[in-house]
C-alpha cells in the first residue's frame, strides 16, 4: 500500500481554457484533506488529474515520492485510488449488488456468479449506512427504483468495495441528507484509522471544518494556500478563495438602482416550483441586470428553463404585466424572451450546420415564402458585425468557430429578433478573456437600451461587477438577495456556501428538508 500521493505544479487545459495552471496537493494515509475553491477554480479537474480521468498538460504526480503516470482511469484504480463522483457510474437497470461488484463478482466453481457470497458482501457494505435509508435497502433492488441520495450511497459503497487506500469524495455529500452525511463522516473517521487517505471536495464550510485535517485552496487554477485546519478560521479560508488583486476590470460603475425603481416591473415570479426549486419569488424591473448566484446545480438552470417554457413548473409568472404559462419555448419567444442555454454544444448550437442557419434558426418564419435568403444574410451579417464575430463566412459550419465566437452565435441568434428579456445561463463559460469583455459590454449596452437581463454565472466576480442585484440560490430557494453595498464577494461566497453574513457556519446542513 502506498503511503502518500502528491500533485506538483499541475497544468491542465481544455481547448483554449486553462483549468489548472499550478495545482498542488499532498495527501497521506490517515488524514482527510479538504480541496476547497470557488466555482470554476479547478477542484473537479484536480480530482480528475489524481484519478487518471484526464491527461496532464504539465506537472507531475508522485506516489510515495516516485513519479507515476496514469495511462487510464483503470490504472489509477488498480493502484488503489477510488473516486466517488456526483455523475453516477451506475447502470440503472441492474441491481445494487450487481452494480457494486460489476467485473469483480465472486464466482462459483461452475463459473456462475456466487449469489450467496455476492449478497453477503453487499449486505456487509450496505450495513455501513444502515438506519439512514428511507426504506430498508436490499442487494436485489434495481438502481432505477432508488432515490438519488441512496444512489449516491451505492456509488460510495462501490468505491469502497475496491478497498482503496485513497478515496476521493467529489461533492459526495451534495445529495445526502444530514443523517447520511453524519454516517459518512463516521465512516471517514474509521477509514482514517484504518490508514486510508481521503480527499474531500466540498463547498460546505461546515462539513469541511467537521471532517478535514488539512486544507488546500485553489483559486483560478492555482493552489494559493494549504495547511492544518486547526490553524485556520472560516473567514480566512473564504478570503483565500477570493481573488485579491482582481483581474476583473469591468465594473458597472454607473449603477442605476435609483433610476430603475421608476421603471415598470417586467417579470414577476411567485411560488415557482419544479423538481429542484421549492418556491421562488422575485420580480425584475425593466432595464435591470439581475444576477442569479449560488453553487452550481442549485436550480439556476431549471429556473431559467422554466421561465422559457422548456421545463414544467407550478406557480405564477407575470411578464410585462400579463400572466403566462408557456408550454413551449416558441410561446416565450413570441412575447420577447430569449434563452442562452448553459451547455453550448448540446443545447445552443447545430454543430454541422452553417453559421447562417444557426443565427437564423429562431427567426426563419419571419422571412416569408420562399425565404428571403438575401435579407436573412444581411440581417445575420449585421448581427455578426455588431458582435465582432470572427468567421470565414456565413456558410461555414458553426463547428469551425472558436468557443468565444460560437458563444457569440448563440447570443446572436436572439439579437436578430430583438427580444425584451434575456435569460442567460452562464454565458461566459469556456470563453476567452477578450470575448468575455465583449459580452460584458454587450450586456450593459442592452440594459441601457432598456432590455432586461436575468443572468446566472458560475463566475462570482462577473455577478458582482455587472449586476444591479444578485439573487443567491441555495437548496432550491432564494437564500439571500444582495445589492448595492451588500453586493460583495465575501457576502456572495458566504451566501452560496450556506454561511450567514457574519461568516458563522449555519447550524443546519444543506440538503435536509
Amino acid at each position: 500500500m502506498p503511503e502518500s500521493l502528491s500533485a506538483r505544479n499541475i497544468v491542465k487545459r481544455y481547448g483554449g481554457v486553462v483549468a489548472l495552471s499550478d495545482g498542488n496537493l499532498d495527501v497521506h494515509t490517515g488524514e482527510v484533506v479538504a480541496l476547497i475553491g470557488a466555482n470554476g477554480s479547478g477542484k473537479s479537474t484536480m480530482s480528475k488529474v489524481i484519478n487518471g480521468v484526464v491527461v496532464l498538460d504539465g506537472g507531475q504526480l508522485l506516489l510515495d515520492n516516485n513519479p507515476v503516470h496514469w495511462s487510464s482511469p483503470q490504472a489509477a484504480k488498480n493502484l488503489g485510488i477510488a473516486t466517488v463522483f456526483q455523475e453516477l457510474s451506475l447502470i440503472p437497470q441492474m441491481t445494487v449488488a450487481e452494480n457494486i461488484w460489476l467485473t469483480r463478482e465472486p464466482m462459483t466453481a461452475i463459473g456462475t456468479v456466487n449469489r450467496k457470497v455476492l449478497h453477503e458482501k453487499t449486505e456487509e457494505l450496505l450495513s455501513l449506512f444502515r438506519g439512514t435509508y428511507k426504506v430498508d435497502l436490499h442487494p436485489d433492488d434495481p438502481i432505477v427504483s432508488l432515490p438519488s441520495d441512496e444512489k449516491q450511497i451505492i456509488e460510495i459503497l462501490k468505491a469502497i468495495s475496491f478497498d482503496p487506500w485513497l478515496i476521493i469524495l467529489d461533492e459526495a455529500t451534495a445529495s445526502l441528507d444530514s443523517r447520511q452525511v453524519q454516517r459518512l463522516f463516521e465512516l471517514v473517521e474509521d477509514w482514517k484509522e484504518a490508514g486510508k487517505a481521503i480527499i474531500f471536495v466540498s463547498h460546505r464550510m461546515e462539513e469541511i471544518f467537521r471532517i478535514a485535517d488539512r486544507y488546500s485552496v485553489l483559486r483560478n487554477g492555482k493552489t494559493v494556500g494549504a495547511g492544518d485546519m486547526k490553524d485556520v478560521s472560516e473567514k480566512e479560508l473564504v478570503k483565500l478563495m477570493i481573488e485579491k488583486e482582481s483581474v476583473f476590470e469591468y465594473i458597472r460603475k454607473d449603477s442605476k438602482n435609483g433610476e430603475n425603481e421608476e421603471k415598470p416591473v417586467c417579470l414577476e415570479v411567485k411560488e415557482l416550483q419544479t423538481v429542484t426549486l421549492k418556491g421562488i419569488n422575485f420580480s425584475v424591473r425593466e432595464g435591470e441586470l439581475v444576477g442569479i448566484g449560488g453553487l452550481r446545480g442549485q436550480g439556476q438552470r431549471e429556473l431559467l428553463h422554466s421561465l422559457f417554457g422548456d421545463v414544467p413548473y407550478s406557480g405564477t409568472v407575470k411578464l410585462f404585466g400579463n400572466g403566462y404559462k408557456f408550454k413551449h419555448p416558441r410561446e416565450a419567444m413570441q412575447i420577447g424572451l430569449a434563452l442562452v442555454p448553459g451547455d453550448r454544444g448540446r443545447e445552443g448550437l447545430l454543430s454541422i450546420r452553417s453559421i447562417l442557419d444557426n443565427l437564423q434558426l429562431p427567426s426563419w418564419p419571419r422571412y416569408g415564402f420562399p425565404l428571403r435568403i438575401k435579407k436573412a444574410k444581411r440581417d445575420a451579417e449585421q448581427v455578426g458585425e455588431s458582435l465582432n464575430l470572427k468567421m470565414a463566412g456565413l456558410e461555414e459550419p458553426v463547428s469551425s468557430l472558436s468557443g468565444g465566437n460560437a458563444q457569440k452565435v448563440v447570443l446572436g441568434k436572439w439579437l436578430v429578433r430583438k427580444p425584451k428579456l434575456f435569460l442567460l445561463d452562464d454565458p461566459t463559460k469556456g470563453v476567452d478573456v477578450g470575448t468575455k469583455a465583449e459580452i460584458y459590454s454587450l450586456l450593459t449596452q442592452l440594459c441601457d437600451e432598456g432590455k432586461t437581463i436575468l443572468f446566472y454565472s458560475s463566475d462570482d466576480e462577473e455577478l458582482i461587477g455587472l449586476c444591479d442585484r444578485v439573487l443567491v440560490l441555495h437548496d432550491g430557494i432564494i437564500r439571500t438577495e444582495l445589492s448595492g453595498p451588500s453586493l460583495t464577494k465575501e457576502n456572495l461566497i458566504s451566501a452560496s456556501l450556506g454561511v450567514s453574513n457574519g461568516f458563522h457556519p449555519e447550524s443546519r446542513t444543506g440538503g435536509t428538508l
Partner: protein
Amino acid sequence: MKNRITWDFLMTRYPVFFPLVLLVLSVAINLYLQPNMFQLSTLNSNMRVFLPLILLTVGQAIVLIAGGIDISVGGIVSVVNTILATRVGLEGSSELMWQYVLISLLVGALAGAINGFFIAYLRLQPIITTYATSFLYAGFALFILPNPGGGIPSAIASVYRTSTPLSLPLAFYVIAILLLVWAYVSSTRYGKYLFAVGGKAEAAYETAVPVTLVQFSAYVISGFMAALAGIAITMLSGSGNADIGNPMTLNSITAVVIGGNAFSGGIGGVAGPILGAITLSVIQNIISFSHINTWWETLVKATIIVAALAAPGVINLFRRRRA
C-alpha cells in the same frame, strides 16, 4: 416514496409477468377455436411450427439486451435453409446432414461476426448496418438457390416433425434447454456484462467492462441462433426456399417486445421473449381458425404486430399523463 412496487420495479424484477398474461389469454382463445389444442398430435404440430421463431427470438432478445438490434436474422435463416436444401439434398445421408448442420452453425456465427465487426469495432448504427447485411445474406441465399426446390431427406425431417419423447413435443425439450442455458449464461460474469453494456454502455466502460467484445459476441450469438432457426425451419418444411426467412425478422423483434424486453436494452431475459414468440404464433393460429376472410388475414396479422410494437409506447404515454 412510500411504496416500492412501482411500474419500473415490476418490469425490471418480473419481466415475464406481462407476456405470461398475454399468452394465457391467447391460448384460451385458441383453445376455444381449436378444442383439441392440447392433444399431443395437435400440440406437436403447433409447437414444431413455432420452434424456428422461438429460436430466432432468443438470439434477437440477447442482441436487444446488449443494446443492439439485428435485422439480418431472416437473411441468415434463408442462407442456412438454402445451404441445407442444396448440399444435403432429398437423397442425402444423415452423415452429410450432420456435417452441413455443423457448417450451417458456423456460417450463422460468421454472419453474426460480420455484423458484430461493423457495429462493435467500426461503431456503425446497428439498425442500418444489419439492414445492409440482410440484403447481402438474402442475396447470397438467392444465389445458392435461385428457385425454390431441393430439400433434405424426409426421414431426417420426420425426426423433427414427429418426435415426441415421453409424450411431449420435441420443441418443449428445446425450450427447456434454451431456458437452462440462459439461466446459466445470465448468471455468469459474461451475462452481467450483457446487461451492463445494454443498460448504460458508458458506465460499463468506466467500470472496465470489455464493451466492444460483449457487443460483438451478442451478434455472433444472434447469428448462431438464426442458424439454429434455419435448421429447424428446414427440417419443418423439408425443402429449400431463399425467401423463407424474410418475414421472420420482424416477427422476432415483435416477439421480443411482447416478451417485455425494452428496446433501449439492459432489461429482460429470454423467457419473456419465448413466451412472446409463442403468443405471436398462437395469435396467427387464432387468425387462421377464426374464419377471417383470407384476403384480410395479412392485414389483421400486420395490424396486431404494429399494435404489439406500439403497446409499450401507449402504456408509457398513459403513465406520463397520470404522473
